[in-house]
């Protein structure tokens, strides 16, 4: 018989071999081959091969069944032993599981947060084709997401690669009224009808094609619809907004929270079209473009810049350009921080991912350490198993099952912890994270973390324990070789390294936050509240001001045309004596009422403040700060002529600079102080939506302070309601408004503190376990020393010495690492502290103290034990 021709298909045969269990491997494969040969004889080799393949496939499910049958039987045994072990050493198991569960919980939480951050805006179908036009260069520095009103339509007209455009503009905070309900609504935008085409925002009622066509229409979201219309159908009804009537033309379907553009209602641009259609100097609008598929943004950017050059030559010559920011990069990487969009910092994503990995690493290291540390206890079991025939693979499988069991237990606890912590986490960070097992990405991610943890922490003990040689163990030779303890020491050093770096981070963040809080901003914010403006209030401002000043507890009243957090009205529509063609003109400008500088204690470096007594001040006085003087390159600015044209042709302010103030931080300490211009507010009613009344209370003793405060505010409220009965009274302390600048930092600080605490906790748990093992190992030595007269202190010293060296080593590595990382973080602040030696020293010291405390506890216990107990076991 010519056997070379009648060979079964090799791949199929290999498969069969792999799938069959050890025992059956040969008989089964042989059987199939035998039948194959018969079949081949009868029906030819081709059909025989097909038949062979068929046999393999049909048998596969049952192979798995039988494989798992055997594994199941053995697994039951492993499970039993594992559970028994856990019960026997309750403390160690508790430490292990707690440590791992905590580590897992942190990582899962951070993972959820990170994947949320990375998923922003992906629900838009045109995600890959949308870009935002940002300005950069010159005054706009790294980036500013503003553009001119006509840029969109002009670009679409001229550039064929642009498929569509849409613009947004913040709608002022206004009072909505319907029936008996009146509330402030502040999260609205103007937009174009194309907003429904470009972005995947949809309407649950109303027609997207026509909803934004009419001037007096408004599209509201479900929340507003619910608030004002309850069960009625909103479309077609009339809403009164700041005393103007609008027709509701659509209800917006609530869109996912991970959108960087957030708004509650839309007003069509038709309302302001006439005013801004050809205005190129106002760049406060936000324009998004949709490019044709597969168009590169480079050419389009060029073309947009040429349009820009045509209409704003001066700015173009100053190096200001447009760039197109892809939608995928906006949420995390944009440089523009205007504030109306939901922006996060990619930096934090990296940082927290690193922290998650850190903590998980520490937890895994713990796990490994503790599992192997008790190896002498398990050694006998291993020896026995090997003697009765277990091979190394089976032992590895056994210890892996144990680690996996512990990991699974820890995971369950971790998930419970995460679910419990999420509500708190969500409110703090205004997110909507959830452990959504239906989202396959999250499910796989979490599963992945669990499996990797199980493998990582299980591998070392599994490999280590299964390598014992039976003879050595059963002869009771203790296995505390130099190699194993060295590795364990490295693990401890790594754990403490990570913990100390986190401690340094916490210390530096605290230092920076403290610095910011205490830094003299240059003006006095205490005891001041700000009130919003409204139409009626604006018209009666001077009357109201007088009424307020009558109150004995009100010290000063002034006003500003917008709030402190929105200081970003830039203009270059100005001139001064000595200006040249190449002068930088862009400045921030603020119009204020008399008494502004006095109220905040801002002293004039030169010249004088605005004075109510000088009538001319109203139209022709200007005050600038040092930065502005520097920019204008003026030697003695007071007295120089100055013209401000930003209010339009009918209100050109022609006058002189009457004073110079010191640079003060009116914005957050993230930014350098910019050139700032102040002028006198002529008519507060201009600024109905953005204007703010600022009231300062009389300085009182703090003992009377609080009650008095409430009383004054009550009286102010009465005055307010007298003049403006239909708008709810609201106020805010200026200090609070400022704190909100640093909301993000405060929260970051809080989170880092939390994680540091956890990391240190986990490291200590590990150290605790390790220390108790070491003590156990040396119990006889301790007993003998005690008998020979060693004092408790002496014993503690001997035991702790080893660990002290380890922690000291961790410090040596951690200090440079921590210093470097924190320097990077501080680099973001325009005004920052030096790291200095103190945080490093404190962190190191803290780590050492904690480590020693943990170890000495065990050592004391051992030192106090009766020597005869430990020497008895001989």
């Amino acid at each position, binding site marked *: 018989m010519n*056997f070379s021709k009648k*060979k*079964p298909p090799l791949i199929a*045969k290999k498969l069969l071999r792999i799938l*069959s269990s050890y025992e*059956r491997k*040969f*008989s*089964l*494969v*042989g*059987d*199939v*081959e*035998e*039948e194959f*040969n018969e079949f081949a004889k009868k029906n030819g080799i081709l059909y025989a091969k097909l038949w062979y393949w068929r*046999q393999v496939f*049909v*048998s*596969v*499910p*049952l*192979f798995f*069944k*039988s494989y798992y*049958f055997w594994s199941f039987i053995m697994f039951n045994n492993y499970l039993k032993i594992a559970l028994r072990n856990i019960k026997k050493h309750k403390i160690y198991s508790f430490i292990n599981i707690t440590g791992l569960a905590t580590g897992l919980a942190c990582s899962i939480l951070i993972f959820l947060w990170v994947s949320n951050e990375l998923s922003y805006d992906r629900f838009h179908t045109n995600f890959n084709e949308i870009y935002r036009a940002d300005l950069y260069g010159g005054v706009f520095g790294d980036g500013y997401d503003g553009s001119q009103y006509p840029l969109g339509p002009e670009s679409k007209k001229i550039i064929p690669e642009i498929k569509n455009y849409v613009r947004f503009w913040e709608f002022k905070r206004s009072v909505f009224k319907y029936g008996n309900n009146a509330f402030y609504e502040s999260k609205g935008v103007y937009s174009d009808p194309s907003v429904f085409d470009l972005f995947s925002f949809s309407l649950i009622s109303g027609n997207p094609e026509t909803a934004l066509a009419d001037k007096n229409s408004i599209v509201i979201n479900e929340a507003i619809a619910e608030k004002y219309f309850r069960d009625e159908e909103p479309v077609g009804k009339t809403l009164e907004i700041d005393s103007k009537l609008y027709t509701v033309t659509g209800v917006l379907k609530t869109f996912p929270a991970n959108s960087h553009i957030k708004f509650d209602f839309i007003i069509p641009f038709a309302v302001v079209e006439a005013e801004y259609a050809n205005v190129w100097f106002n760049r406060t609008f936000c324009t998004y473009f949709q490019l044709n598929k597969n168009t590169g943004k480079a050419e389009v950017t060029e073309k947009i810049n040429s349009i820009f050059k045509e209409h704003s030559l001066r700015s173009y010559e100053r190096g200001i350009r447009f760039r197109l920011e892809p939608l995928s990069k906006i949420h995390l990487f944009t440089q523009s921080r205007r504030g109306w969009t939901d922006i996060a910092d990619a930096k934090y994503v990296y940082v927290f991912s690193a922290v998650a990995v850190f903590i998980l690493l520490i937890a895994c290291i713990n796990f490994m350490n503790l599992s192997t540390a008790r190896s002498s206890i398990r050694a006998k079991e291993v020896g026995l198993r090997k003697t009765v025939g277990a091979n190394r693979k089976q032992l590895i499988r056994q210890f892996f099952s144990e680690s996996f069991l512990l990991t699974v237990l820890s995971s369950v606890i971790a998930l419970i912890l995460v679910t419990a912590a999420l509500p708190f986490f969500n409110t703090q960070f205004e997110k909507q994270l959830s452990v959504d097992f239906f989202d396959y990405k999250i499910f796989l991610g979490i599963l992945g973390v669990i499996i990797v943890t199980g493998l990582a922490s299980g591998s070392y003990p599994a490999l280590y324990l299964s390598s014992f040689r039976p003879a050595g163990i059963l002869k009771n030779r203790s296995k505390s070789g130099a190699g194993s303890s060295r590795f364990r020491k490295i693990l401890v050093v790594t754990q403490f390294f990570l913990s100390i770096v986190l401690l340094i981070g916490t210390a530096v963040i605290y230092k920076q936050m403290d610095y910011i809080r205490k830094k003299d901003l240059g003006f006095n914010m205490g005891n001041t509240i700000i009130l919003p403006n409204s139409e009626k209030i604006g018209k009666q401002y001077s009357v109201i001001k007088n009424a307020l000043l009558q109150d004995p507890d009100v010290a000063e009243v002034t006003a500003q045309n917008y709030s402190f957090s929105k200081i970003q009205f830039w203009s270059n529509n100005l001139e001064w004596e000595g200006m040249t063609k190449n002068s930088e003109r862009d400045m921030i400008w603020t119009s204020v009422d008399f008494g502004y500088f006095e109220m905040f204690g801002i002293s004039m470096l030169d010249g004088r403040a605005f004075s109510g007594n000088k009538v001319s001040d109203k139209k022709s006085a200007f005050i600038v700060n040092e930065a502005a003087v520097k920019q204008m390159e003026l030697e003695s600015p007071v007295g120089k002529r100055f013209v401000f044209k930003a209010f339009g042709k009918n209100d050109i302010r022609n006058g002189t600079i009457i004073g110079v103030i010191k640079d003060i931080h009116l914005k957050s300490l993230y930014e350098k102080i910019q050139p700032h211009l102040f002028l006198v507010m002529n008519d507060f009613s201009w600024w109905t939506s953005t204007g703010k009344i600022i009231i300062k209370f009389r300085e009182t003793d703090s003992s009377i302070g609080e009650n008095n405060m409430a009383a004054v505010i009550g009286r102010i409220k009465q005055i307010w309601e007298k003049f403006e009965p239909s708008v709810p009274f609201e106020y805010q302390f200026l200090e609070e408004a400022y704190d909100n600048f640093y909301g993000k930092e405060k929260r970051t600080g809080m989170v880092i503190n939390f994680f540091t605490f956890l990391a240190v906790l986990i490291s200590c748990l590990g150290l605790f376990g390790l220390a108790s093992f070491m003590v156990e190992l040396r119990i006889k030595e301790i007993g003998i020393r005690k008998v020979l007269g060693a004092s408790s202190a002496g014993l503690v010293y001997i035991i702790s010495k080893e660990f002290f060296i380890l922690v000291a080593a961790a410090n040596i590595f951690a200090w440079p690492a921590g210093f470097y990382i924190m320097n990077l973080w501080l680099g973001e602040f325009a005004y920052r502290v030096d790291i200095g030696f103190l945080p490093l020293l404190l962190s190191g010291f803290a780590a050492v103290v904690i480590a020693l405390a943990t170890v000495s506890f065990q050592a004391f216990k051992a030192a106090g034990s009766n020597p005869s107990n430990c020497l008895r076991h001989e």
Partner: protein
Amino acid sequence: MKELTRLEEMYLLAILKLQENAYGVTIKKMITDQTGKKLSYGALYYTLDQIYNKGYVTKSEGDPTPVRGGCRKIYYNITPDGKKALKAAFEIQKKIWDGVSAYVLD
């Protein structure tokens, strides 16, 4: 003593009938011939393991042959326990079929 399942009964009877020559290929052939059931090797060996675990059969190894690509055979032989189980099954079969003949089922 647990009752034999139908499947186990088939296997044991096949092994009984094959006497010395009961191994993978032959058992499979016998069952297919007798009952028309088409088995896959996976199913076959799974059940063989089951009845082995229950102690109804023993295994013994045979020689490798070239036609099997050099692989050994595993022969199965019925044990006294197996015979007892079959006997019990036979008794039950007799009792429950008593009085019923094939004609009645038409």
